[in-house]
């Protein structure tokens, strides 16, 4: 494992930017900024007419590092230790679970908790616990 440093200020500021985006999306479109819902809606069946907006939002997510690199000349550290096999299994579970549970870290964790939703609180506690249990097994089981 790669050790990372504790960055409370940067993380708080970054979190506030995520919150700002969630508030702006609600103000503009009246919808929850849930990335799993937005990403899943890029694929058929199409049940509403939000497709272009979803493409634009996801394009913005992908463009963010390009903007950072253009402005600052470099990108912050990104360390992905998982093997291709782990990435495939992790991706499948992340995609399936977030849609099956109607949301992920952004939809339930940020927007749902902010709306004081009991369902989102249950979901957030569950995925945090499952994530912690998984890392515990992967790193400390021997």
């Amino acid at each position: 494992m790669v050790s990372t440093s504790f960055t409370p200020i940067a993380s708080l500021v970054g979190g506030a930017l995520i919150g700002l985006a969630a508030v702006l999306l609600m103000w503009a479109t009246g919808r929850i900024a849930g990335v799993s819902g937005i990403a899943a809606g890029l694929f058929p069946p199409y049940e509403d007419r939000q497709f272009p907006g979803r493409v634009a939002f996801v394009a913005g997510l992908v463009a963010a590092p390009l903007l950072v690199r253009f402005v600052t000349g470099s990108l912050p550290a990104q360390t992905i230790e998982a093997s291709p096999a782990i990435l495939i299994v992790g991706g499948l579970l992340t995609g399936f679970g977030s849609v099956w549970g109607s949301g992920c870290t952004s939809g339930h964790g940020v927007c749902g908790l902010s709306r004081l939703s009991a369902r989102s609180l249950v979901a957030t506690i569950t995925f945090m616990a499952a994530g912690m249990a998984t890392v515990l097994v992967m790193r400390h089981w021997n």
Partner: protein
Amino acid sequence: MAIPFQFLIGLIFGLGLIVSGMSNPAKVLNFLDVGGIPAGTWDASLAFVMAGAVAVTFTGFKRVLKLARPYFAERFYLPTRSDIDPRIIAGPAIFGVGWGLAGFCPGPALTALGFGSVSAVIFVASMSAGMVLARFIAHLPSLTRFVTPADPLDT
């Protein structure tokens, strides 16, 4: 105007993921690694991401939801369910395992594509397949008789 605006919102969201450190799976995994607390390798930063995001969203939503309607839409589309069904536990439990394996949740995985990493491409392709599969199963007639298929935007 709504479409370029949504691009801008995605951009702000992505910048938040990068600035906060969420776009770095190593940081996410070190946060989830509560077993690393005794050794001092636990990285508590992500709790601050959550705190910052919820603080802004909580106050912002209160103000925005007092408006008669959103700027580009006729009405607000808010989740209305409040029941705790098996899916609201099973889904996040499955997602949490995936998150703990690779250190990516959906937002940071998409932003990671812009870092140009092959690992992110593999993860996003697989995540997309998982999403399509979940929606396909939720729409099977045998299941929809018993459970209402969740609107992907419903939380």
